[in-house]
């Protein structure tokens, strides 16, 4: 990683009622780096993204944490300050592309709005720019599409429009929240390729939120594994897949059917379910489902501490033994 990361997050905490859905999360994103955040539903990965953008749902609030984006202290900014930043310095694309666009505005109007928010262009120039943007994300007939409404486009096409809008201001950080989960595999391949390409051109950093380990393997430089609101493992992608250092990561990798496994065999399972936010007891949050849990795991919560290789961290008392077989 470069000496000064683009984004650094310290002790980020998001509460819904009395429950911490994101609990003292710290990490950094280097310049031009792709960092994947993985975990099951309810682990806090999307909430982390929303907190960075200051777009948390009404019930949730950020109660703690410092967020530094290229020297700007985001946690100190008010709504007006954040608005200036969103779209210009950091952008987000969402899981449901059709729902994320305004159904009552044409594609052109939405893109023009996004462009004019940060650039001093008249409508005609902005429209021309919008057309160029659609072409860069591989939309044919861009002129026609500008006049259409989201419902007239397919899901894959809406996702392209969203990416075009998100990249309009050439942000240095793009947050992609499950960008391909709602799409078919052939369209997923197109969109992932597009994100790679555009990222290479702009040189942006990407935070990629996903539950699909295949997408992580394809895209990520670095991986954060979240469980019950906490980061439980952090490593370079190659190291993580070569040998996970947290039993949860190991279980996540093992329990998915793969194109290269032995068909028809029993799949390894993770018993139980993710604890509800705020309901976990003392000790490690994964202990009740962990095949490696010992006495200590039930009493003391392990910190996210370095494992031998550089920059690798795991929150497990038995981090040195995991994946050793």
């Amino acid at each position: 990683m470069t000496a000064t990361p683009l984004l650094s997050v310290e002790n980020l905490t998001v509460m819904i009622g009395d429950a911490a859905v994101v609990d003292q999360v710290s990490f950094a994103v280097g310049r031009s780096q792709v960092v994947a955040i993985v975990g099951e539903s309810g682990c806090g990965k999307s909430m982390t993204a929303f907190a960075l953008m200051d777009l948390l749902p009404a019930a949730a609030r950020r109660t703690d944490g410092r967020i530094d984006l290229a020297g700007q202290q985001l946690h100190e900014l008010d709504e007006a300050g954040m608005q200036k930043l969103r779209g210009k310095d950091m952008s987000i694309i969402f899981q449901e592309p059709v729902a994320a666009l305004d159904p009552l505005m044409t594609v052109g109007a939405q893109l023009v709005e996004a462009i004019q928010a940060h650039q001093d262009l008249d409508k005609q120039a902005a429209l021309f720019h919008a057309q160029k943007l659609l072409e860069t994300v591989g939309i044919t007939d861009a002129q026609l599409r500008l006049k259409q409404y989201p419902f007239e486009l397919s899901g894959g096409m809406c996702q392209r429009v969203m990416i075009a809008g998100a990249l309009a201001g050439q942000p240095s950080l793009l947050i992609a929240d499950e960008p391909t989960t709602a799409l078919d595999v052939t369209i997923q391949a197109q969109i992932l390729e597009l994100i790679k390409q555009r990222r290479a051109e702009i040189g942006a950093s990407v935070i990629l939120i996903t539950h699909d380990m295949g997408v992580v393997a394809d895209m990520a430089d670095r991986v954060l594994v979240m469980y019950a609101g906490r980061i439980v493992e952090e490593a370079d992608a190659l190291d993580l897949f070569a040998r996970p250092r947290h039993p949860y990561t190991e279980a996540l990798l093992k329990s998915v059917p793969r194109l290269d496994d032995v068909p028809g065999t029993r799949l390894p399972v993770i018993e139980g379910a993710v604890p509800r936010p705020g309901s976990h007891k003392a000790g490690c949050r994964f202990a009740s489902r962990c095949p490696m849990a010992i006495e200590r795991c039930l009493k003391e919560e392990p910190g996210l501490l370095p494992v031998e290789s550089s920059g690798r961290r795991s929150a497990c008392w038995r981090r040195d033994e995991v994946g050793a077989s």
Partner: protein
Amino acid sequence: MSEVLGIANLAVHFRGRRNWRGRHPPAVRAVDGVTFSLGERETLGLVGESGCGKSTLGNAVLRLVTPTAGQIRFEGRDVTGATGEELRALRRDVQMIFQDPYSALNPKLRVGESIGEPLLAHGLAQGAALRQQVSELLGLVGLPPERASRYPHEFSGGQRQRLVIARALALKPKLIVCDEPVSALDVSIRSQILNLLMEFQQKLNLSYLFISHDLSVVRHISHRVAVMYLGRIVELAPRDNLFREPLHPYTEALISAIPLPDPVAQRKRARIILKGELPKPTAPPPGCPFHTRCPIAIPKCREIVPLLEEKRPGHWAACHLRG
């Protein structure tokens, strides 16, 4: 292997409502000339992207939609036009598991009532015998029998899918149509449900028509796999043949599009990225339905529809160029 389900030249077209001029919009050819058979204790995986007609095909097997043409055979009987008692019998022997366990259970019924309802509806059990059977079914899917008096909202997603499976098993069916049964579930729960389905197949002599867009899941659970595109089967083969040596360029692209959870292998893989999207099923292209996105199409593909032919023993594909 004796045939449990046989589908011959099946077509399901939806005509749509008349517009203000009194004209019908072009029909949606959701399923168009599909033929396959499914044996006892066999799982046939049915894969394809949204809108390819795989769910409509599943619904047609249960006669939840009316076929426009073709034949559906169940255990040798033609059930395409079955009505009355014959249709009731079919719906005893064929059950369905849906994708979303949240909407598949009535939120106002205790889960025991939901599971017992098929037995009650078919007059197979009531009173104490019904309660006994519900308990056994809950035990079978790994849930404590005393939770029969709870409501669906008190269960997690994975547990709800177990409840849906218990209900599907209540009538001791021979065939279960599984329509994306694990797509809405988290990865850790997904493997539990897949294990359960594989276990029951052996224990209860079940056949599955397993509909999914997830090729890794389909590969794991299926014996044979059919790939659908725009309402047609474009390739049908034993699992290993299909994954090792796909003949149809669409199958090939689908397999290559799935990212492997292994960064070293994945980053070395040559990916076939298809251009464009699925054409509208109201206006399928002439000739081969796939030619608009096919990387190897020749002029012939634009004009002549390729037939599904047996290119190798047991391995069928609909392509002019391959095989």
